[in-house]
């Protein structure tokens, strides 16, 4: 298999070095950039598979890079993991809405970072293989789109149309965090009347119906929700 190329944009040299050291150990090709301009240049020149992006950068900031990446069709497929310090939840939400795939907060453990990188790369590959997910199986949970049915340990559960759409959308992208806005726009559809905080009500209802599998839907405080990545 072709080696994946990862670009690390981080202004603090020591952190950049330790991230790159750990990625090399996992057999990734790595590139490093200490500011936004250099980062953008390397993205265009090297077209990496994934960018580890520090949001607090001198010059062009991380969110701008994120925006540019998702706006350019040729670069849109590049996965982004944001690296931020806590207390920047607003930036995280914005980043996710701009199209970032995941985020890691400082201080992080290199192991966790590496596993996130793996998960995101696996997911982006899965998406490219076009897992439309007529039938999604996660642990004892079966979501069947064609029959519009959900089985919990073989027993069918009743879900409303909105609840079904939310569950299916989250289950399709395990490990990926979605903000409430994204769930409203992408899972339910913009034409519906569900607004932001209403999502919480739907999620609560879905969790209740999943009973013992309710842990599969995780709350990411101040950000949104995520389907547990069980590593399948």
């Amino acid at each position, binding site marked *: 298999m072709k080696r994946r190329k990862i670009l690390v944009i981080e*202004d603090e040299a*020591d*952190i950049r070095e330790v*991230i790159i*050291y750990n990625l090399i150990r996992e057999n990734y090709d790595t590139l490093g950039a200490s500011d936004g301009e250099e980062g953008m240049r390397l993205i265009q020149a090297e077209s990496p598979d994934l960018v580890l992006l520090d949001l607090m950068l001198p010059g062009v900031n991380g969110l701008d890079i994120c925006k540019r990446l998702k706006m350019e069709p040729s670069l849109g497929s590049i996965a982004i993991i944001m690296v931020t310090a806590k207390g920047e939840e607003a930036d995280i939400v914005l980043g996710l809405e701009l199209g970032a795939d995941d985020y890691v907060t400082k201080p992080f453990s290199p*192991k966790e970072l590496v596993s996130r990188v793996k998960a995101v790369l696996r997911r982006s590959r899965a998406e490219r293989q076009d897992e439309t997910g007529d039938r999604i199986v996660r642990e004892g949970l079966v979501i069947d789109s064609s029959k519009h049915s959900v089985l919990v340990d073989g027993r069918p559960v009743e879900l409303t149309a909105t609840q079904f759409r939310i569950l299916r959308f989250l289950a399709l992208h395990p490990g990926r965090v979605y903000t409430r806005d994204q769930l409203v726009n992408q899972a339910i559809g913009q034409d519906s009347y569900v607004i932001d905080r209403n999502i919480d009500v739907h999620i609560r209802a879905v969790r209740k119906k999943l009973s013992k599998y309710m842990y599969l839907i995780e709350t990411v405080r101040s950000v949104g929700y995520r389907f547990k990545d069980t590593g399948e």
Partner: protein
Amino acid sequence: MFHSRFLWRLFASYAALILISIAVIGGMILNRMENDSLEEIKRSLKSQVILFKDIAAGYLTGPAGDSIREHIRSLGAELGTRLTIIDAEGVVLADSQKDPAIMDNYATRPEILAARSHGYGISTRYSSALGSRMMYLAIPIKRYGALLGYARVSVSLISIDDRISRLRSIVAGGAGAAMVVALLFGLLIARRFSRPITQMTPVAESMAAGDYTKRLPNGRTDEIGKLSITLNRLAEKLTERVETISKDRNKLQAILESMVEGVIAVDDSERIIHMNLAAGKIIGVLHDECIGKPVWEVTRLREICEILSATIKNKREIESDLKITSRGNETVVEMYASPVFDAGAELVGAVVALHDVSQIHNLERIRRDFVANASHELKTPITAIRGMVETMIDDERMPKENRTSFLAKMRDQSIRLSTIVTDILTLARLESAGGLLEKTRTNLGDLVMAAASPFRVSAQEKGVSLETEFPGAPIYLPVDREAISLVVSNLLDNALKHTPGGGLIWVRLNAGESAVTIEIADTGIGIDPIHHPRIFERFYRVDKARSRELGGTGLGLYIVKHIALSHGGVVTVQSEPGEGSVFRVVLPSE
């Protein structure tokens, strides 16, 4: 006083009464007198006719002779009466005053007609022949039942008429005089009655208009007197009440005016009934020009109008926030509105308190920014250290050179961490002390020298020469020794970091008339003037990467500025890229 309607009414009715009485009484008296006089004349005429009757009978029966006519003429002249003898056909036979030959037939005169039918006739009428009113009295003269003729006596009433008219004018004059006197009296009486009332009126009117300073004259014991006493007492009571109320109101007003919070009270139609100075200041209007105007006319701040109308509508307290931006300044205001009920629990309006929390908000924002910045500054070395430590734990087969490099980096990062912590703690101590510095009278030259000495070694190592320039006479100043040494060492640390080998650093101390200047100059890389306004901000770095490399925390100059300010001084910078920098800390002298 003469405008008093009351007086004129009183007087007019009085005058009418007098006029009518005098007219009635005068009329009656005159009438009676005329009647009495006429009766008297009638009686005298009666007795005269009886005397004249025989003469007339003689004349009628006997031959008519001149002597009798003469007799009648003289008799008539003597009596002052006109005597006439008339035959049965009415022809005048003899008359004491006129020639019978030229006289008319008297048969149809009323007294003759009455005498023929009743045996006695009397008539009073105006005689055009004599030019005066006359009374005529006639009786028939009969003999053996046959009518011979008539005897008539008449007298002019001119004297009576004269008398009556004279009397009338006497009565009229007397009545007039009496009336004038009576009316004058009447006017006086009317005035006496109306004066206290007309006096009371303006006083009562001014009371009604709110002026309780006027009092009514006392001294009368009648009802009017009682009324004025009562009115005076009423005025006193009202004065007291008004004073109490206005004192209370002034107290309330003073309290409201001295409040830091703005207060706006409106009635139930949202008209402003009160607004204090603070409220005017907050919403940017002159507060005393707003009273009585609808709130939406006074301010364009929709939130204030809305909270008041919502409070009135819902009859309950409402809390809300308001942001006012004017001339680039943002004011954050907390609003508490509550409905106002009267004693009968009826809604009469609403009151809103405006609390300017901009300062709290600002402090909060500064604090939040500081925490965010500080945590970011702390997290960076921690992230690096943790990343390297965990990597070393995981990767047991890490090559030796990587291991050594990681350990060296970890040492540097931990040094950096402790520098940041030290700076943050210094800052916390300086800020929490709130300027409560431990000032002692200090020889500034010695202090600066001592603070600079640790840098001599590192300057020498780097090949930078460090020179000091102090005035001959020692400078004494009350300063916090620790703080001022920190200022010197922070500035020297910066100078040394940014001055390449072969460069120069001066430390100068100048004593001016009113200030002492500590000057630290270098021949280093300099600072672009675009950064000058911001270099004293917390965590501001001209070159982030370079600063980290050199172990800067972004707090050094902020600490310098803070200390300078808390000593009542300032810090200035003068620098151009490539030309070195000059930092001056100016402290006021004693």
